[in-house]
């Protein structure tokens, strides 16, 4: 309630820790351990059943155990160097006028994604996803603002000049990232691109390569239902992807029931979402660390 009032300052902090900014598969090394037994003299006067000469036991050593800490920096446990003890990873959806910004929200799309992220990274996360209007983004001060906001819909995007400026400030000055997901129309695609033309006039959108760190091992883009092409687009500012545009309703894949798409598709959807979240958090943490060092 309080946070929805204008004028209140909000704080977003990442959880502290460290790790590598990539989601990894666990790697095990299988080692056969052969235990040697003492051979007892069969001619001994004492009678008992001799045990088998050798006993093979499989020892599973998790190779990735010491590095399976997802995050950024050199802190202990999974987390971020630029984070704090009280910090948590939150999932924030943007509310804007003109369209159905709340698409799939009632089918727990954001919650499912946040839960998947928590389970696969070990980061401290918020209990519930959140919704903020664009003007509420202004309440976050620089260095304490969300690294990523999620924006979806399929109708219209109507932003005032002030809201456009807030988004511009959020992306450029507060080092934030927008994760846009086309919820179902080619109209939304063109509206979002023209919005970006206002927010980042000096940046040209480019197709994001499949082997970009933001995808990090995802073999293909889980385009659930392409509405605005089949290629993910990125707006790169100072070497980081500041805006990531997914063309095909990834929120549908995250939602309960997964819109009936095959398992491998919605699993990839979570993985891509997790990668984007992790990338945004890592970049933000790196930025915070750089500021600290320069001070």
């Amino acid at each position, binding site marked *: 309630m309080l946070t929805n009032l204008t004028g209140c300052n909000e704080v977003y902090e990442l959880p502290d820790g460290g790790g590598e900014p990539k989601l990894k598969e666990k790697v095990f090394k299988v080692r056969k351990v052969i235990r040697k037994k003492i051979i007892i003299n069969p001619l001994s006067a004492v009678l008992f059943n001799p045990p088998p000469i050798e006993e093979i036991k499989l020892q599973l050593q998790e190779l990735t155990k010491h590095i399976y800490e997802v995050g950024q920096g050199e802190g202990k446990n999974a987390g971020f160097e630029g984070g704090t003890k009280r910090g948590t990873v939150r999932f924030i959806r943007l509310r804007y006028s003109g369209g159905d910004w709340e698409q799939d929200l009632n089918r727990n799309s954001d919650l499912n994604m946040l839960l998947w992220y928590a389970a696969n990274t070990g980061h401290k996360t918020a209990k519930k996803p959140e919704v903020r209007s664009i003007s509420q983004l202004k309440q976050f001060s620089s260095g304490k603002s969300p690294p990523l906001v999620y924006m979806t819909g399929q109708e219209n995007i109507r932003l005032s000049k002030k809201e456009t400026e807030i988004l511009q400030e959020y992306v450029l000055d507060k080092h934030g990232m927008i994760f846009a997901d086309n919820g179902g129309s080619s109209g939304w695609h063109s509206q979002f691109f023209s919005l970006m033309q206002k927010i980042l006039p*000096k940046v040209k959108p480019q*197709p994001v390569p499949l082997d970009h760190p933001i995808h990090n091992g995802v073999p293909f883009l889980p385009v659930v239902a392409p509405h605005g092409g089949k290629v993910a687009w990125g707006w790169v500012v100072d070497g980081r992807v500041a805006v990531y545009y997914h063309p095909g309703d990834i929120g549908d894949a995250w939602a309960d029931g997964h819109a009936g798409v095959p398992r491998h598709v919605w699993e990839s959807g979570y993985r891509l979402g997790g990668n984007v979240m992790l990338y945004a958090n890592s970049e933000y943490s790196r930025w915070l660390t750089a500021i600290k060092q320069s001070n």
Partner: protein
Amino acid sequence: MAYSNKTIKLNIILLASFLSIIQLSAASLSWTEQIEVNTFGKLRQVERYQLKAAEKFYTKGEFAAAAAEYEKYITLYETSKGAAYAQLMWSHCQINQRKVYTGIRDGFQSVIDYWPNSNEAKLAIYLIGKSYKNIGELKKAESAYSKTIINYPNDHIALLCKWDLADISSIKKDQKRLNQIWIDIVFNTENNKKNLSYITKSAKNLSKYYFNQSEFKKAKNVLTTIYEGDELNDAIYQNAKDAVSNLCKNKATKINGEKLADKIILIIMESIDDAKIKIYLNYSEELQ
């Protein structure tokens, strides 16, 4: 005798069709994807066959299969003269599969590391810049282009890099840097057949900028590097007309616009000889 004539004709037709197929195949590849004729001439038959097999997949758009074939070439004929080209093409295959970072890191960079003196190394360093530019990593692109310019200052590829650097500056809306690059292209680049179109475009862009700033002398100076005589006057008119209308639209700059228009009229009048003026005046009188 008749038989031998027929066979000669048939051979000529076959040869012509074979050559046309080769040309078609080469035409479908861009200049950064083609092997040098000298290098191709030095390859053994088996090596050529392997390259052709890979190229067949590449031109069909089957880049994964093409990459496998180029990789096979590198494994089998690592010391061959065509190995650098095969590595370059492998990188192109990665880029076409949208694996840009792999293409740069494991492909183009390998060409530079393993065959630093080859023509492909020159292309690779340029293509690193181009690939970074295409994915929006402008800083890295600028760095790669600068390296190319330093390593090959007098080559046509340096001009291409400068051209792309100008494009990056225009994306960044950095007019000062853009002007510097245009000046460099116009005044410091060798004017030959390959470079001419880029120099002309840069000269036009730079003169347009100067006309918009009401700097007539500078603009004319730029156009003089390309044009002379009547062509120069025409170029002044063509590149200044938009500037005149832009300047005249705004009240604050209207005087500058009118001054610029006067200068252009004066130049055009000076260039037309008296006989032509008389013809023109007679013609306009007749019309009235």
